[in-house]
């Protein structure tokens, strides 16, 4: 008798366990609420996209892809570009998707060296070849968009305080700008890493640590992520911070427009260019669909949707930018750059050295 009671309890537990899990499955696969309806589409008609958390594409845009090709896109996103790259490397042989978007030039060779992508190089639109990788990596990764990580200044604050805003990386170490600069850290933030690469590119592998020492001595604040630098410390950000100089993107002045003027501007000689690529994952269940999606991302509809949705520039030169972008988002003529293979090789060392300098 006693035994049967316990077994009954266990059985009830087991049943309720599976029962409640199923409720979640049915609710999440309900095609009416998802709009993508992946559960109802046949497998070979689904293209699974592996991307980062900053992926934003309106449903109407993806519906356009479905209308054109018959494929339905299922998006699987997590973390930043680094996490996506590592996910691809770790799931080599049994990938979680067909096509990837969002690997940038700082992680590109990690992915191409690991052999987790298929060769696929579609015809590029006008001007896009300028953003293509060099060598064998170019066969696997197709440039889709770019953005520049630059020092931004809150001109309104500088006007109010009757101070000339800084104009160069060197200026940031001057006493006039003591305690005014905030940047996300290189170890924990992609724009932070881009800024470190700018300084490595400008001051050389032997000089950048000296520059950072001066930067830190001048009261630079290093936050862990972009969001708290922007929302807590920056005077023109989400809150009312106390630092008018921030490391952020060249598109940011478009978010501080009042009337026909932006109260902030990007210093174009401080920028590091980040390019995001797409590629077909080796072992994809739907390689044809993956290729079709890479081509779609190069098409004008997708390219045009990049600035308002993901705050990045299209690689296609012919695609018109939004009006405020034309006016307020300036593209640097000569951004700083470090070859992707160099970055892959030295990432750990540089980050360690950077941590040593900034922790001091």
């Amino acid at each position, binding site marked *: *008798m006693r035994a049967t009671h316990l077994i009954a309890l266990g059985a009830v537990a087991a049943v309720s*366990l599976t029962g409640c899990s199923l409720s979640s499955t049915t609710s999440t696969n309900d095609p009416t609420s998802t709009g993508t309806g992946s559960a109802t589409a046949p497998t070979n008609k689904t293209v*699974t996209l592996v991307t980062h958390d900053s992926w934003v594409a309106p449903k109407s845009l993806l519906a356009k892809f479905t209308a054109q090709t018959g494929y339905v896109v299922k998006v699987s996103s997590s973390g930043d570009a680094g996490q996506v790259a590592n996910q691809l490397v770790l799931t080599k042989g049994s990938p979680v998707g067909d096509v990837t978007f969002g690997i940038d030039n700082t992680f590109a060779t990690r992915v191409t060296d690991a052999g987790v992508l298929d060769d696929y190089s579609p015809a590029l639109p006008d001007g896009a070849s300028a953003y293509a990788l060099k060598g064998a990596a170019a066969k696997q990764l197709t440039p889709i968009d770019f953005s520049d990580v630059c020092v931004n200044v809150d001109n309104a604050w500088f006007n109010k305080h009757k101070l000339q805003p800084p104009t160069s990386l060197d200026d940031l170490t001057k006493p006039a700008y003591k305690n005014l600069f905030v940047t996300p850290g290189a170890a924990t933030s992609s724009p932070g890493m881009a800024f470190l690469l700018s300084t490595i590119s400008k001051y050389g592998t032997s000089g950048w640590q000296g520059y950072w020492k001066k930067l830190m001595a001048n009261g630079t604040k290093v936050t862990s992520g972009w969001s708290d630098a922007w929302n807590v410390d920056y005077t023109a950000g*989400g809150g009312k911070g106390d630092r008018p100089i921030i490391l952020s993107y060249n598109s940011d002045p478009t978010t501080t427009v009042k009337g026909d003027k932006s109260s902030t501007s990007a210093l174009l000689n401080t920028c590091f260019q980040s390019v995001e690529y797409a590629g077909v994952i080796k072992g994809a269940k739907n390689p044809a669909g993956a290729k079709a999606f890479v081509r779609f991302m190069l098409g004008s509809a997708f390219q045009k949707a990049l600035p308002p949705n993901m705050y990045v520039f299209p690689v296609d030169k012919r695609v018109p930018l939004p009006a405020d972008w034309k006016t307020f988002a300036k593209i640097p003529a000569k951004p700083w750059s470090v070859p992707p293979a160099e970055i892959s090789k030295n990432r750990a060392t540089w980050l360690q050295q950077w941590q040593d300098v900034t922790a001091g």
Partner: protein
Amino acid sequence: MPSRWPRRAALTALALIPLVFLAVFFVLPVGGMVLRGLHPDGSWALGDTWSVLSRPPERQALWFTLWIAVLGTALTTALGVPVAYVLYRLRLPGRRVLRGIVVTPFVLPTVVVGVAFRTLLVQSGPLGFLNIDASWVAILLALVFFNLAVVVRTVGAVWEGLDPRAEESAAALGASPWQVFRTVTLPALRPSIISAASVVFLFCATAFGVVLILGGTRYSTIETQIYLLTTNLLDLRSAAVLSIVQLLAVVVLLWGAEIARSRKQRTTVTAGRGGLRAVRFSDAIPLALTGLVVLFVVAPLATLVVRSLQIDGVWTLDNYRHLASDGADNALLVPVWQALDNSWRIAIDATAMAVVLGVIVSVLVTRRGSTRHTRGLLTALDGAFMLPLGISAVTVGFGFLITLNHPPLDLRSSPILIPIAQALVALPLVVRTLAPALRSTDERQRQAAAALGASPLRAMVTVDLPVVWRPLLAATGFALAVSLGEFGATSFLAQPDHPTLPVVIYALIGHPGAVNFGMALAGSVVLAGMTALVMGLVERLHVTSMGAF
């Protein structure tokens, strides 16, 4: 006695349910990641593996993790126990509201709390004069802020149910209030205090967002180091070594807690109604402490609420109205209310799993083993379910990707993984809330019930349930809160068209534009407010409604 065997078999079968769950969704993925680090390409790559621990950044991280977690646990416990007394023992007006306020931090997304804390602490902020922005003090305060709920509720739930007669008789016999507390109350609370403290320690030792946001980049813990090694540097070997250290530390901690718990004769709690008593003059010190703690909890919350009600310094409800939209420039794929709906569905699934499994585990581990051997086994079982709290979410998340890829466990893109991952985190809390209460039940009552012919189930309903129902409800509320606030594992698994509310809040706060920031704050206030409300309601459910169990 021949009847022992089927009973033992039934117990084993019962134990298998949670064990299989733990094996598949925790041991397998974590083991997979550790193996990938130490045994890549089919051969062991141990070599100078352990030199990882002597590298300066790792050594600093180990050291910092240890002392900040010890300090955080000590402070949280020292403040939590008097607050539990005041909020669960005294007939204090407004105690229900205060109980709600104290638990809200537990579900708030760390990035939002980080922003709220830092807004107070930056040089130009109201507490800027303290000069603790980007310091370990800020990290410590945030750890206390987040974990206070664990101590207050775990201890409070037991305290509320204590039969006051033992204390009253001690007092009548001339014991001073302090003597009564030390000799009567404290021994009865001891298991729950140790339970809560060990959970808090694990939360402190694995804190991630708090350390990053409030420490700037000056401090790193084992957890942040594993994150950096895994997601950025792809140095899985070093990450594996640190994961093993994390695991060992958890085992040592649990072992220590077990020794501390069983050191003294267990005190028993009679299944009394418990009871509140009037506030006395001698309660001045705990009352004052509680006042301070409430202030400390309210200050960042108030900052959040105030900022959520303002846009560019002007008072407005627009941030809340915007919650129905997709955010500025389509920052979101789904409106916030839809994410809230997802959060609830997932939370209910996760809570159901955690509570069912937690009850099974608690019933099992609180059995008196008849031999040393079985006692040891039960203790190990108890500890095993605590392990998920001590392991980095990023390790489990990547582990899912590399191990759950073969049928029948091809679950990588399955939405079931989200409530499962959350249940793994909530399960130890459920066990830690229930087990102390079950343990403190007088075994003689069960024996008496059995002697009178009651079946074990009947004995459980009549003897255990009256003692356990309060902690059971507390545990359910906790599981809900854990699930609603969980971000680490969820962000790994949630799909962009089905995000949870914390995932959406992170997305909003990561996009420039005042509208998105305002919405993130409003969303956090909604999340916290609603969770506090629901936890309050769950606690008010009466035992009669549990009678059908």
